[in-house]
């Protein structure tokens, strides 16, 4: 065992600043990390976390300041140089190649070779070994990445990083898409690595992950390094205060008293391929219903089916007692049903990144701001201004490309876009992924406000705390079915976990079986 505290820092940054065309990303940052320890970096969206690690990993270069690795100063101009020095990064945006196989991806930058040519068999064996190490034997090394689910892809990404034998492994929100089982596995692997002396930098917006895993925590705010301390030296509330620079009183807005509501969105026996095997569910006006369960149990498909994206869906869907299964998003959004969906991946499914913030906000409701065939400039300006004000989107000018916003603000744009259509049913697919605590709270508050204005909300999340804190009811899915519903105080972490694993629970919990139609 290494004694982490005594060892000299593995990597050390001093006086590092980085500006992106005038905008500050990092300023005067001194920071160091050691081998054999897991070090969390915390901060709001845009605090500079990714920039920091991108500098260490050779993706961007600092404007000023120095980077020292094992006592030698370095200035990496590309990721491969950093990897040579032992610094390997799993980036926030996946860097896998969808059309290449798992084995190709894992050995992409330095494949085993024979006679100068890539040795495919050695490469496959290597992949198998690395995958076994993170308990992903179910992934075939010959499979294409594009055929894998998001969580499997993230595991491959981790295997790929491990394959580079890092001395410092950086995980930038690398667990945000993992299923809880994989998170568990990854924790174990990280613990093993730590024992072997590897240092780790861990960026996550999930506080409980940080709590469970890390030895040291550093907080960043507005591009500055605020403080570094050992785990346990600060309470959660203190940490949050450091991150956002103010106190947080309530994490979740208070829930209204449980009432029995008339179902507004009613789903009966919904079937699709073999992913939805007869889902029955209802959401009342003003109600927030959570969707729980392990990742990949049909939650996403359910939301897509309700939004008219899937072909060949069977079953019955009514909104306000009318209508059928929407045939397209246009159909779902218009007419009587007025459904909105905040999709899983905001960059590819939620936004047109190069287009302006204003256009992105209006994209679902141009018909609402048009006079005859023409868009009314005054009306659209007003709508944009209202949306920005309502969600407090932080921006420079509405004409700027939406890509210039931070992740959290981008997510707000996606939600605001739908609010402009005045939806009656709001479907949310893991909307807080990769979003900082401050912004998360705003979203929770917003959801509650919408519910209070009679919107029916169906909310899928991979974060149990969110389900517990936000939802009036939670339906847990397993294998394309809703196995259990909880409401009120019965929504507890233990209950949710047990239901997710489809374990029949002792009778003490007031869980009830889903009512079959």
């Amino acid at each position: 065992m290494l004694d982490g505290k005594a060892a000299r820092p593995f990597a050390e940054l001093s006086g590092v600043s980085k500006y992106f065309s005038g905008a500050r990303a990092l300023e005067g940052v001194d920071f160091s990390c050691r081998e054999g320890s897991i070090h969390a970096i915390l901060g709001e969206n845009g605090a500079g976390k990714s920039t920091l690690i991108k500098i260490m990993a050779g993706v961007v270069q600092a404007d000023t300041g120095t980077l020292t690795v094992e006592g030698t100063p370095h200035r990496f101009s590309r990721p491969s140089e950093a990897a040579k020095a032992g610094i390997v990064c799993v980036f926030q945006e996946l860097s896998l190649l969808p059309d290449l196989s798992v084995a190709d991806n894992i050995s992409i930058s330095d494949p085993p070779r024979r006679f100068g040519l890539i040795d495919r068999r050695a490469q496959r064996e290597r992949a198998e070994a690395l995958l076994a190490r993170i308990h992903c034997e179910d992934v075939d090394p010959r499979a294409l990445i594009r055929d894998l689910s998001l969580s499997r892809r993230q595991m491959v990404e981790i295997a790929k990083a491990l394959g580079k034998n890092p001395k410092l492994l950086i995980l930038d929100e690398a667990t945000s898409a993992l299923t809880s089982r994989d998170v568990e596995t990854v924790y174990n692997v990280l613990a093993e690595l730590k024992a072997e002396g590897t240092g780790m930098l861990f960026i996550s917006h999930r506080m409980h992950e940080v709590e469970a895993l890390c030895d040291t925590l550093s907080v960043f705010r507005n591009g500055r390094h605020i403080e570094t301390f050992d785990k346990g030296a600060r309470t959660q509330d203190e940490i949050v205060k450091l991150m956002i620079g103010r106190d947080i009183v309530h994490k979740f807005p208070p829930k209204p008293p449980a009432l029995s509501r008339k179902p507004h969105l009613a789903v009966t026996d919904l079937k699709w391929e073999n992913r939805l095997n007869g889902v029955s569910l209802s959401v009342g006006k003003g109600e927030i219903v959570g969707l729980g369960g392990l990742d990949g149990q049909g939650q996403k498909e359910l939301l897509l089916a309700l939004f008219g994206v899937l072909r060949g869906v069977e079953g019955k869907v009514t909104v306000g007692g009318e209508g059928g299964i929407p045939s397209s998003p246009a159909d779902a959004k218009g007419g009587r049903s007025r459904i909105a969906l905040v999709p899983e991946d905001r960059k590819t499914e939620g936004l047109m990144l190069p287009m302006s913030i204003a256009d992105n906000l209006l994209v679902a409701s141009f018909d609402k701001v048009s006079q005859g065939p023409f868009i009314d400039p005054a009306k659209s300006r007003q709508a944009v201004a209202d949306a920005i004000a309502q969600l407090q989107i932080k921006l420079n000018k509405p004409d700027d490309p939406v890509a210039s916003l931070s992740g959290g603000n981008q997510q707000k744009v996606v939600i605001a876009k739908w609010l402009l259509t005045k939806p009656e049913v709001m479907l949310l697919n893991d909307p807080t992924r990769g979003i900082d605590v401050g912004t998360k709270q705003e979203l929770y508050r917003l959801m509650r406000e919408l519910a209070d204005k009679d919107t029916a909300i169906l909310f899928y999340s991979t974060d149990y705390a969110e389900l517990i804190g936000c939802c009036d009811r939670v339906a847990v899915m397993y294998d394309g079915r809703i196995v259990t519903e909880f409401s009120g105080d019965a929504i507890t972490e233990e209950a949710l976990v047990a239901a997710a694993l489809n374990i029949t629970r002792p009778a003490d919990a007031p869980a009830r079986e889903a009512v079959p139609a």
Partner: protein
Amino acid sequence: MSAVTATTPPRASALAMSIRQNRGFYGAILLLAALYLVYNFIHPRGFSTNVFIANTNESVALAFVAMAQAMTVIVGGLDLSVGAVMTLTSCIASELVRGEPWQIILGCIVSVAAGAGFGLVNGLVIVYGRLQPIIATLATGAVAIGLALLIRPQPGGEVDLDLNWAVTNSIKDLAETYHLFEDGEAAWLQPIAWVPVPLLILVIITAAVWIPFRRTVTGRTLYAIGSSEGAAYMSGLPINRAKLWAFTLAGFFAGCAGLYLAIQTGSGNADIPQAGAYTLNSIAAVVLGGISLLGGVGTVIGALIGALILRAISFYFRILSIDPLLQPLVEGVVLLAAVSLGAIRTLRVKNRLELFR
């Protein structure tokens, strides 16, 4: 099955896996086999060396141009200059490939090198100029045609006639022409004596250039770029080098096409419509051969198959009685139908989001 204890699903066999991942490619092989077999069945002298030689001769230039196109399509680009580069090199070859044997060999090398050089220039413009390949090559294609016209304002040239005969016939004829292997009578040669030289050329160049290249890091980087350029960059792959290689090899293959064309026709011809037709056909061939125009998927061998399919379709007009003025229509409809074959899968897609990939 419990969700907690992950069980390893049974692994598919290598072939099954390959077929599942390369449906387009295997489909193309089947289509080609069917087309070619039927053609030979109804041909009065089908299944003969003569027919085989004629058919392969006819296909070589297009096959090379399609292979050139494949290089750039795999990286997610498109090269609208391949036909023009073929024309340029055929004009160069028509000036150089004659005289003493060493002059002929040098001429061949210079011609192909000129093609590769032009491809490299394409690559430099695209990589360092950061231009979209499709539009940059639209422009450089015009330059290539201009150069071809400068070299050869009128069609003509005296390419070595022995070479013409040797390269457009069977291995036996080749040996006979150059008095090799006992004038082609050597016993060991007989089992392969019937093989058309053009086919041999295609196979050798594919095997010597493409197959090893694909196994290099640079070669794999082509796929990485076509698949996701950003991810390729983040993985520290040599993106610029790979793109330069892709366009250089495209130029190389187009150069091979031009050289073969010059030898086959014994001349050069700066024919603008022909250059355009080859470029467009190369795109069709690439698609028929199972290469995705989005990049990252498919192989140069697929492009070769695609080119052979295109050619095989036109063979039918010579044996079936189709009104000559309806032939262009039939050809168009068949082409449209062939490239639409893949659409059937689209209609079966159950999750419409998959349509946008």
